[in-house]
């Protein structure tokens, strides 16, 4: 439906939906012509953004942008910003619409094409404009944007920084011209600037104070949130920036600051985080990873179990978005790998569905873990860990995947823990067999001196205490014991058979099968009635 300049109502919406369905594309050889559907999309988007009709903006953003990209711009960029300015008759190239359009434009290039160095610099400038628009304002801006779009902006911002660092570290692949550009434009994508922007976004809306109030069950007033914090766009951007900081600090190996970002964030279902599923998954993954690196495995297990369950339950909603689904599947696998290690060091009761997933993905590795194979830790860690970054990449930096690159450094931290845990699983498996055993006997089994065994017993208790994290209601599968002089007394924990999960899985499977059978029966052509043969 062509743009006529008036804005009707529901009817307009229905017509608009039609225009996203692939119309016979106006394939032009010059490549200059913009397809009609795209023109309409841009005009409508421009209109709705300027009139703050957030419901329509959300629809266009979540649905239209994706579909049009798929159909018209699968392997080429969206129209250049100058062209779009013409189409929408926007006079000001620094207007918020143009800034937002450019963000989409570059995001598309990063996703489907390869960004040039110039793209990277221009995109960074555009982000500076966008954030300056929010931060430098004397009073809260009038525009409203859908939460998903705000999250994607922050997520993409961190991603493009990551991409830039990785680009710089591939010293061998940078040509001479690019090297000169890098030297000249050394302001762009500096780690301190990126962090600073995110921090300022969190401070603009006093997000930490808001979260503390929510934690305490108090209402969030203007006293707490400040003038800017009372507007959704600032609060949500601030919250998403917290998650962005969590992620960035993990990538830089700073688990202390990573965890301090989320100290007031409640990882519950009805939370700010739940408004955008991708945000929830990202936040849970990185928080769990930070806990994993500081050996608080119970926390990791708790977070990952709940988010994996969430992903299972909402899987169907992501099916139609191939990018999102891919991302989510990747995070899923990463969490499973880390869970395999965590539950080996800290046996906790895992949901049946999670157990099944781990078995499906990593059964061979889990077996090797249990047999004391020390090489499998590296493999699982590499699968589960994020793409670490170094804050400064010099021209002569080593590869990020080398032993002294950022990933190698974090691996060393992890391997220290692996080494410290080395004797504990064996100790555990022996203690499981007894309710009491003298130290001397255990020492014989383990082929160790008695004092070594005593120290190992203490190490077991020490590690267990750390892994507990901030407690909670997890059911531990682990043994417990105490030492009375030269005798060890071990707990006797029985697990009642858990049928519930299994039944739920089977009931749901049956429901699916029934659906399929009924569906098939309805579409099968009716069998022609057999007429009896009369002779």
């Amino acid at each position, binding site marked *: 439906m062509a743009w006529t300049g008036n804005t009707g109502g529901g009817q307009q919406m229905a017509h608009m939906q039609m225009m996203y369905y692939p119309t016979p594309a106006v394939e032009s050889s010059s490549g200059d012509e913009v397809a009609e559907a795209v023109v309409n999309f841009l005009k409508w988007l421009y209109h709705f953004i300027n009139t703050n009709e957030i419901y329509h903006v959300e629809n266009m953003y979540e649905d239209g942008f994706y579909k049009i990209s798929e159909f018209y711009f699968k392997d080429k960029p969206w129209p250049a910003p100058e062209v779009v300015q013409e189409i929408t008759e926007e006079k000001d190239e620094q207007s918020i619409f143009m800034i937002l359009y450019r963000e989409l434009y570059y995001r598309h290039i990063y996703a489907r094409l390869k960004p040039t160095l110039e793209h990277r610099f221009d995109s960074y400038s555009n982000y500076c404009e966008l*954030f300056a628009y929010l931060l430098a304002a004397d009073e809260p801006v009038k525009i409203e944007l859908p939460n998903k779009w705000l999250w994607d902006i922050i997520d993409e911002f961190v991603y493009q920084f990551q991409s830039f660092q990785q680009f710089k570290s591939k010293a061998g692949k940078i040509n001479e011209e690019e090297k000169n550009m890098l030297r000249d434009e050394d302001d762009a994508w500096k780690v*301190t600037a990126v962090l600073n922007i995110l921090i300022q976004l969190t401070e603009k809306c006093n997000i930490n104070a808001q979260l503390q109030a929510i934690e305490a069950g108090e209402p969030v007033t203007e006293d707490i949130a400040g003038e800017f914090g009372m507007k959704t766009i600032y609060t949500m951007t601030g919250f998403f920036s917290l998650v962005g900081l969590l992620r960035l600090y993990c990538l830089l190996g700073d688990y202390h600051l990573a965890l301090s970002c989320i100290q007031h964030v409640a990882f519950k279902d009805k939370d700010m985080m739940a408004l955008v599923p991708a945000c929830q998954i990202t936040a849970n993954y990185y928080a769990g990873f930070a806990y994993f690196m500081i050996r608080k495995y119970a926390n990791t297990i708790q977070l990952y179990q709940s988010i994996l369950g969430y992903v299972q339950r909402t899987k169907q909603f992501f099916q139609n978005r191939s990018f999102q689904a891919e991302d989510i599947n990747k995070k899923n696998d990463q969490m499973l790998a880390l869970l395999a290690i965590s539950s080996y060091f800290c046996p906790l009761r895992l949901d049946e569905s999670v157990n099944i997933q781990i078995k499906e993905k990593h059964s061979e590795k889990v077996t090797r873990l249990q047999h004391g194979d020390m090489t499998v830790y590296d493999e699982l860690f590499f699968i589960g860990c994020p793409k670490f970054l170094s804050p400064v990449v010099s021209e002569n930096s080593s590869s990020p995947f080398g032993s002294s690159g950022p990933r190698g*450094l974090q691996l060393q931290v992890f391997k220290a823990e692996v080494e410290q845990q080395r004797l504990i699983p064996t100790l555990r498996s022996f203690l499981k067999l007894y309710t009491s055993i003298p130290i001397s006997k255990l020492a014989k089994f383990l082929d160790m001196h008695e004092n070594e065994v005593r*120290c190992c017993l203490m190490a077991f208790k020490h590690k267990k205490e750390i892994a507990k994290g901030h407690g909670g209601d997890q059911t531990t599968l682990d043994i417990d014991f105490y030492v009375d002089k030269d005798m060890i*007394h071990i707990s006797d924990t*029985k697990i009642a058979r858990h049928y519930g999960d299994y039944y739920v899985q089977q009931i749901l499977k049956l*429901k699916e099968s029934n659906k399929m059978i009924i569906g098939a029966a309805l579409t099968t052509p009716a069998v022609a009635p057999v007429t009896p043969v009369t002779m």
Partner: protein
Amino acid sequence: SQDMIDDKAVVSTQSTGEGLGRLNPEKVDFYIDYIKFQVEHGFYDGDANLNILKLYQFSPDLITRSSIDIVHLILVKALMQLPKEDYVFCRAQLSQDMIDDNLTKKIDDVATLLETCLFPKFWSVVQEEKIFSEMAGFVEAARCFICHVIQLTYKNIEIDFLKQLLGPLSTDQEFDEILERHSWEVNGDSVFIGHKEEMVESKEIVEKMPIEVVRPLLAIR
């Protein structure tokens, strides 16, 4: 354009305030003096110390020949916080050069001895390095951690073994003071630490089904 330059200026201004990791390279000397002060006077500020490591990570040009000494101080101070995770936080921020340094490796070995509770060996190793013997409060902090682990593990512990774990004590009185501080009682040739029987009570773990798991079933007609 001028606007673009101003925009960049807005977002790159560094304030000197505290925040979620806002760093100011100009403050590095202040932080270095601060940790020396901590070492001398026996107190601890983990956040400030981590800031130094972060500054080294972000601005490698701040690193001088003597920076590694500061790193060592930070690591030992962090180690004294066991069972808290300060040491791991610090360790994850070190560069390969810092890690390869001989004294760093020694400190790391000591950290491993503590984490694996090989306390008798720990005491003999720390006597070999000045950094431990000259660090105010190190011995006390180590003992504090060791007593914590003993408390977790033991109901009764043999006196001789306990003394091995606590390391070289200058007087018997010191030993008695430790016992008193933790309310431990001498009982012949062993020391009573605390009742632990409830730890090993028979437990049966019963299944719990959270509502989210059951909800999909309720929707089935």
